[in-house]
């Protein structure tokens, strides 16, 4: 029996649904709807729906988590009245935003104004299609998942700038320009840090990268790369201390100043989706994904759905780190940010590539041959 | 006595344009001067008497005339001095103190806005609190305080 994956689950659901439908229809039509191609098509839709639901639920949970955590850092409570400990507060907020009128400034460019949040949202969701959450999620589907994820991730400045430009507001424009500059500047160290991981794991496939961490997680040899990657992710996610594009003190709300109602909710959700993606990437690349080193007792790691549970635990811990940073650090300035990116992060990332190469080379030495070398 | 010294010095320098120095408890005194020597007096007080800091500029509407007063602070003597000049009500104009103390800018705009005193040589004498084009100077006694409707209508017509 093939290992159960998320897609096989979706396939089974689709088949069952269509079978049910087929029983209600006349024979000819039933034959048509239960054709393998139709089942496959519906299975894809179901798969996407599951992914969408999981990612959105997690995002909303993430917002709640940040609110509660940030509240404790600030000696207050965060959301607490809607639902248990305020769990449903974000749904209430979302409902409120849904009901709100979406106002478009008269001079704003209509197409860009509407397209930008939608595209931002869609690209952010798209990344979840390639992220393996655990062994049974969507592994082995694509060979270059890491690169694909990063490529989709880097679409964002385009749409942000589009929305900023389209909303015809000076704050938005400045925010958009900052956003573009910052994201492009931090793409480089992020990619270089990822190269270090790739050197060590020998693969662009996220599943392979995780599997390579069975023996030791990559954060230990690649600590420098981790720092670069986390800092770069903070910049990409536009979170404090690198949230200059929406620096509310000087730019009101930055590039989404003119957005309200559902469009703002899109931006907001997409921001947290990207934060989730960032945390997931950190876990995948450096913290061993759903695996544990072999010396961890297997009782801890082998219960049903252990992979997903541990993966989410790690992800939320990483995001907690981001929240902690947000609670303690002020925002840096654009020039300082760029200088940090180009002058500090890039050399550090390069150094970490060298370190990764050294580790790989050391593994090949017969003296240290206890570690199995990597193919390819 | 600082006041006596200053009085003598001012009398020697400005002659009859210096109208006297009244005692004012807690201050050096209150110098009354003729508005025609305002600029020279400011420069003299700043450069030679050490009153480096302009603390306030304001106006008083005494119905038949208007008074403009300045308060200066001397870092050397750690004390205040008040200047006061009477201006005719129909033409309340005096030289601006901005070239002497740049900080006078906002003070003088405020005095123009609220009491209607014109400062000649002010770089940017516009209203500061009231809307541009507002008809009244609110701190004048002629301000129609008891007819709010009138105020509202006139403000809106701008």
């Amino acid at each position, binding site marked *: 029996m093939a290992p159960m994956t998320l897609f096989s689950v979706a396939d089974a659901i689709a088949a069952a649904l269509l079978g049910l439908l087929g029983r209600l229809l006349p024979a000819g039509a039933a034959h048509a709807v239960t054709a393998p191609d139709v089942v496959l098509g519906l299975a894809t839709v179901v798969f996407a729906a599951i992914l969408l639901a999981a990612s959105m639920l997690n995002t909303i949970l993430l917002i709640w988590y940040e609110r509660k*955590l940030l*509240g*404790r*850092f*600030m*000696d*207050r*409570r965060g959301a*607490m009245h809607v639902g248990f400990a305020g769990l449903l507060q974000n749904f209430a907020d979302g409902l409120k935003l849904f009901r709100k009128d979406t106002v478009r400034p008269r001079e704003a460019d209509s197409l860009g104004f509407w397209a930008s949040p939608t595209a931002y949202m869609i690209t952010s969701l798209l990344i979840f299609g390639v992220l393996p959450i655990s062994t049974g999620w969507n592994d082995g589907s694509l060979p270059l998942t890491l690169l694909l994820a990063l490529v989709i991730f880097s679409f964002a400045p385009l749409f942000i700038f589009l929305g900023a430009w389209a909303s015809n507001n000076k704050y938005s424009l400045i925010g958009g320009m900052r956003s573009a500059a910052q994201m492009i500047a931090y793409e480089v160290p992020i990619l270089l840090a990822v190269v270090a991981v790739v050197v060590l794991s020998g693969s662009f496939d996220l599943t392979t990268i995780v599997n390579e961490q069975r023996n030791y997680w990559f954060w230990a040899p690649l600590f420098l790369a981790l720092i670069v990657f986390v800092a770069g992710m903070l910049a990409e996610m536009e979170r404090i201390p690198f949230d200059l594009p929406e620096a509310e003190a000087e730019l009101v709300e930055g590039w989404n100043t003119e957005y309200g109602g559902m469009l703002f909710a899109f931006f907001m959700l997409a921001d947290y989706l990207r934060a989730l993606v960032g945390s997931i990437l950190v876990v995948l690349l450096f913290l061993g994904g759903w695996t544990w080193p072999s010396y961890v007792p297997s009782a801890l790691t082998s219960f049903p759905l252990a992979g997903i549970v541990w993966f989410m635990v790690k992800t939320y811990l990483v995001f907690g780190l981001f929240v*902690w*940073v947000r*609670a*303690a*650090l002020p925002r840096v300035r654009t020039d300082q940010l760029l200088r940090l990116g180009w002058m500090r992060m890039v050399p550090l990332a390069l150094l970490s590539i060298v370190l990764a190469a050294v580790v790989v080379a050391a593994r090949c030495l017969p003296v240290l041959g206890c570690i199995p070398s990597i193919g390819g | 006595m600082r006041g006596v010294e200053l009085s003598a010095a001012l009398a020697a320098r400005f002659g009859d344009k210096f109208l006297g120095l009244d005692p004012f408890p807690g201050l050096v005194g209150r110098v009354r001067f003729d508005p025609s020597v305002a600029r020279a007096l400011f420069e003299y007080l700043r450069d030679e008497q050490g009153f480096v800091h302009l603390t306030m500029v304001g106006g008083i509407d005494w119905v038949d005339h208007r008074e403009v007063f300045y308060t200066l602070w001397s870092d050397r003597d750690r004390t205040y001095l008040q200047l006061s000049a009477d201006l005719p009500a129909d033409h309340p104009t005096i030289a601006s103190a901005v070239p002497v103390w740049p900080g006078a800018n906002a003070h003088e705009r405020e005095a123009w806005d609220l009491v209607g005193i014109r400062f000649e040589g002010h770089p940017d004498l516009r209203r500061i609190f009231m809307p541009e084009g507002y008809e009244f100077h609110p701190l004048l006694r002629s301000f129609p305080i008891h007819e709010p409707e009138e105020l509202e209508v006139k403000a809106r017509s701008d």
Partner: protein
Amino acid sequence: MADSPARTGSPPLETTETERPSLWVVRPLATAAKQFAKSLWRPSTIVYPFERLEDPKFRSAVGVESGRPIGVGEIWDNYRGVHALNIQTCISCNLCAFSCPDVCIEMVTVPGGDPKHPKKCPEIDYGKCSFCGFCSDACPEGCLTMTTRYELSVHKRADMVYSPQKMYEVFQSKLPMNPIRVARPENEDAIRLDPPLCIGCFACSRDCPTNCITMVDIPKATPKPGEKPAKRIWKEPVINDSDCVRCGTCISVCPKDCLFWGSRE
């Protein structure tokens, strides 16, 4: 920091930096983490509708003594909130209305007075009130006081106006009253009479809220020997200073302006 000059009282130096960044951002991160640990169980916020600082039990639990103060602990019940009016003791002296800087107090007739001189008590429009407390400070009988109630939201603007009866209900609800009695100068001025101007019209004694003005007979003029004494008996007011609340009603009703404020001596 323990030997900060301000703490020890020794002569301090120039302003010095008490902190230097160490390891870039480790210090603030550590501080935030410390606060996180501290507020994990009980953050410093008050869950307002459920916990109230005016609740003595709650505020003593979160006072300065508790180590993690939310309030200062004991707060005296002198908050200036909604007014309480004791209609029974109100003497309709008008002082609260006179003293109000925002002109939000109007004296309205309440049942209980005699028809000729209806009893008037204050009605307060909280839409205008600034809670300065001048009215309760002015009240000579202590019948208009301020309570610790601060929740005033209403749905209609008309509900912002508190009638005397409504304030009497507040009084009857036994809220903690503002215990502060204002310092009054020892040597208050009192009302004096300019006798030659008085026409003996009784207006002052009729309108005096405390009935401290009595009209006494005076001989108008000493009759000359052999002349008949004047038939008409003149009266003029005599004011009992210890009962007088100095509301000035008599001055304002005097048709001849013969009453005035004078020093006690």
